[in-house]
């Protein structure tokens, strides 16, 4: 994977080596976090029910 044209999800350390950077939406980001699952995410739908 070339440095000039990274793919989403590509990873590298910052120049000072202190931060792990991840390529997302065209930029290198340092804030990749685990998404907190909401109780609403698990809302089940059954035929006949309204959202």
């Amino acid at each position, binding site marked *: 994977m070339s440095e000039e044209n990274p*793919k*989403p*999800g*590509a*990873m590298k*350390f910052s120049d000072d*080596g202190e931060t*792990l950077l*991840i390529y*997302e939406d065209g930029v290198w980001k340092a804030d*990749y*976090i*685990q*998404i907190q*699952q*909401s109780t*609403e*995410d*698990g*809302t*089940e*739908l*059954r*035929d*006949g029910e*309204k*959202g």
Partner: protein
Amino acid sequence: MTATEPTPGDAVGDLRATLKWIIAAAAGTGTLLVGAGPLAAMGKLDDRGDVAAAFCGLALTVTGIGWIVWQASDALMPQVSTLARFDDPELADLRALAATDPRAFFGPYASLDELRAKLQFHDAVAGNAAVMLARQSDERRAKMVQQVLDSARTNADHARHLERRLLTIVHAWTVRHHVRRARRHAFIAMIVVVAGAVLFLTSVNDNRPGTTEKKRASTHTIVVPGSP
């Protein structure tokens, strides 16, 4: 999720059970209307017009029942669903429902496209992190990569779960669409069945023993007083 909670997949079984009841009701009604008794009476028909009417009535009834069974069995056939079906015109009401409560359908993502893109992204992060971790000799850096790897795997699992759930909903909605269509057809077909049964029973009853004699007698009674 506990084992007792309903899932969209349960709805598929319920929908198909409903459809089986529709078929059973249609078949039962047809048997009741054009049962063994009226069929036996058909053999005693002597008037060509009545025979033709009884035959047409019987044909209409059988056609109506066949129509119901055909439509219902079409909906009972196993469906193959993919997430691509989410954009089908027949699932427009599901998309409208998703628009009113996106979180219930897509979790933290805004749309199906974003959900799929992010699943791909989290998988890529997890894959790259695993490779980087294997090459990492610095313990502090390895710890950072390990943290990202764990997060990416959790995020990917969550996105995958949402995608599977959505696929189940799409599948249930597709079956629901077919069941609703079969129900509409069943309603129209039942009108045909009843029309056929009325025609059949009317022609058969016209020829029951005694009916013809009464008719003749009635006709005779009218004619006699009129004669000089």
